[in-house]
C-alpha cells in the first residue's frame, strides 16, 4: 500500500476524473425519479425521467422525433455555415486590410450591438415564417462571434513573427497559411465555440415562434396538448445537442492547437 503510485492507481484516478462531472446530474436524476414516483411532483409539473425516456422512445418509433431532429440540425448547420463563413471571411478581410477595417469595422460593431433576436419581427416581415427566416436568424447570431474573434485573432498575431517570416522570404498566401492563420486560430476557435452556443439558442427561439417542424415546434405543439414529458424531452435534446457541438469544437481545438502548451497532454510530450 505504501508503494509509489502504480499504473493501476493512476488509471483508477483517471477513471474517477471521468466520472466526477457526471455525479451531480445522476444524483439529481435519481432524486427526481424518486420524487415523481412517490407522487411528490405532479406529472403535469414535472413528469418522471422514465416518462420522458418513454416519450422519447414513442416518438422515435413513430418517426416524428428523427424528423424533427433532422429539421433542426439542418437549419442549425446551414445557418452556421452561412453565418460562420461570412464572419470568417469578413474577419480575414478587416484583419488583413487596413482599408477594409476602416470601411467596415465601425458598421459591423454597430450592428453587433443590436441583439439579433430583437430583429425577429422585422425578419418575419421580410421573409415570412418560412425556412429563410430561421436560417437568416441563425446566420446572424453566429456571424458576429466568429467575425470578432477572427478579426482580433489576426490583429494580435505576434508582429515579430510576421516580420521574421517576411525576412525569410514568405509572402502573400504562404505567409497567410503558415503564419497568420495558425496564429489567429486559437482566437477563431473561441469564436466558433461561442457561435455554436448562439446557434442553438437562436434556433430554439426561432422555432418556438413559427415552424411546422423541428425541436422547437415539437415543444410548442406538445405544450398545446399538455404533454409535459415531450416538452421536457425537447429541452433535454437541446442540452444534449449543445453539448455535442461543444465537444466537437473542443476536439477540433485539441487537434489544431496541439502545438499549444495549454493543449499538450502528458502523453503528447
Amino acid at each position: 500500500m505504501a508503494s509509489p503510485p502504480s499504473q493501476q492507481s493512476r488509471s483508477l484516478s483517471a477513471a474517477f476524473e471521468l466520472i466526477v462531472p457526471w455525479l451531480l446530474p445522476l444524483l439529481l436524476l435519481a432524486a427526481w425519479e424518486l420524487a415523481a414516483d412517490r407522487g411528490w411532483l405532479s406529472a403535469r409539473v414535472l413528469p418522471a425521467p422514465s416518462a420522458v425516456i418513454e416519450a422519447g422512445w414513442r416518438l422515435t418509433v413513430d418517426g416524428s422525433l428523427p424528423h424533427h431532429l433532422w429539421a433542426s440540425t439542418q437549419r442549425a448547420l446551414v445557418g452556421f455555415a452561412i453565418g460562420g463563413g461570412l464572419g470568417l471571411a469578413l474577419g480575414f478581410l478587416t484583419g488583413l486590410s487596413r482599408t477594409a477595417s476602416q470601411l467596415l469595422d465601425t458598421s459591423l460593431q454597430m450592428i453587433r450591438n443590436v441583439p439579433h433576436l430583437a430583429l425577429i419581427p422585422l425578419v418575419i416581415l421580410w421573409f415570412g415564417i418560412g425556412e429563410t427566416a430561421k436560417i437568416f436568424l441563425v446566420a446572424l447570431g453566429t456571424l458576429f462571434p466568429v467575425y470578432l474573434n477572427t478579426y482580433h485573432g489576426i490583429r494580435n498575431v505576434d508582429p515579430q513573427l510576421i516580420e521574421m517570416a517576411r525576412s525569410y522570404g514568405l509572402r502573400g498566401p504562404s505567409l497567410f497559411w503558415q503564419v497568420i492563420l495558425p496564429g489567429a486560430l486559437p482566437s477563431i476557435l473561441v469564436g466558433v465555440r461561442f457561435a455554436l452556443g448562439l446557434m442553438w439558442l437562436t434556433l430554439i427561439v426561432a422555432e418556438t415562434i413559427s415552424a411546422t417542424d423541428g425541436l422547437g415546434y415539437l415543444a410548442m405543439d406538445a405544450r398545446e396538448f399538455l404533454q409535459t414529458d415531450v416538452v421536457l424531452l425537447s429541452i433535454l435534446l437541446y442540452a444534449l445537442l449543445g453539448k455535442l457541438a461543444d465537444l466537437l469544437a473542443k476536439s477540433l481545438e485539441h487537434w489544431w492547437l496541439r502545438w499549444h502548451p495549454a493543449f499538450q497532454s502528458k502523453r503528447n510530450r
Partner: protein
Amino acid sequence: MSPSVSYLRRPEPAPAEAPAPVALRLQGVERSFGDTPVLSNLDLDIREGEVVAIIGRSGCGKSTLLRLLAGLDQANGGTLSWRGAPLSQRIREIRLMFQEPRLLPWKRVLDNAALGVDRQLARAALAEVGLGEREQDWPSQLSGGQRSRVALARALAHSPQLLLLDEPLGALDALTRSSMHRLIERLWRQHGFTLVLVTHDVSEAVTLADRVILLDHGRIDLDLNIELPRPRSPTDPRLVAYEAALLERLTGEERDGADAGASITSIEPASIAI
C-alpha cells in the same frame, strides 16, 4: 565535427596574403526616428568572409544598423551595397538571426527550420547545430539554448552569404554561450559566410571577431582588428588585454564623453603580450 578538418578547408590567412575584397559597403548611411538621429553619416567596409562584432552601449543604434543590413528597415540617406549591387537587390543572400528565437510555435522544429526552403536543407542544418534528433518536437518542448540553435539552423538552411546575428546569445548561461561560440565559429569556417554580430558582451566580441566596431551615438568610435589566431582561448592573456582595453574605452565614454580612452584606437597585440 573535428575542427582540424575545417582548418584545412579554411586556413588562417597569412599576413602577407592579399586581403579579401570588400563585400559590404556602407556610405554616409543615415537613419533617424522623428527628429532623433540614430545613425549619422556612417561609413563601413566589411570584407568577404570577415567576422565583425559590433558593440556599444544600449540604445546606440546597433539593432537599427543590423535591421538596415537585413533590409527590414530603410535608411534615410546614404547607400548600402552588397557585392557591388544595392543591398535590396541581393537580400536573398542575407539572413538575420533575431535577438529572440522567433520560432513559430505551431510548427515542429523541422518545419520551423524549413521556413522558406526545402525540408532536406533544413534537416541538414538541424544536424549541423546538433538538433537532428529533435526535429519532430514542438518549440515549446525545447530549452532556451536549443531554441536559439533552431533559429540558427533556420538561417543556415538558406545558405546565407552574409549572416547577421543580433545578440543571439543574450539570454543564455555562460556555459551554453561558450559552446554556441564554438558552434558559430565552426559553422563560419565550414560555410565561409561573412558574419556581422551585435553583442553586449565584450569577451564574446573578442573571442569571435576579426574586427570589433564600437558604435557610439550613431558613429563608429573605434574599429579594432583582433589579430589573434583561432581557435581562441578565453584565458589567452592577449585576448584578456583586448577585452580590458575595449571595456575601458566603453566605460571611459560613460565617464567623460567621447574623447576618453582615445589612446587605444589601436592596440598592438605584441606590445601587450606578457
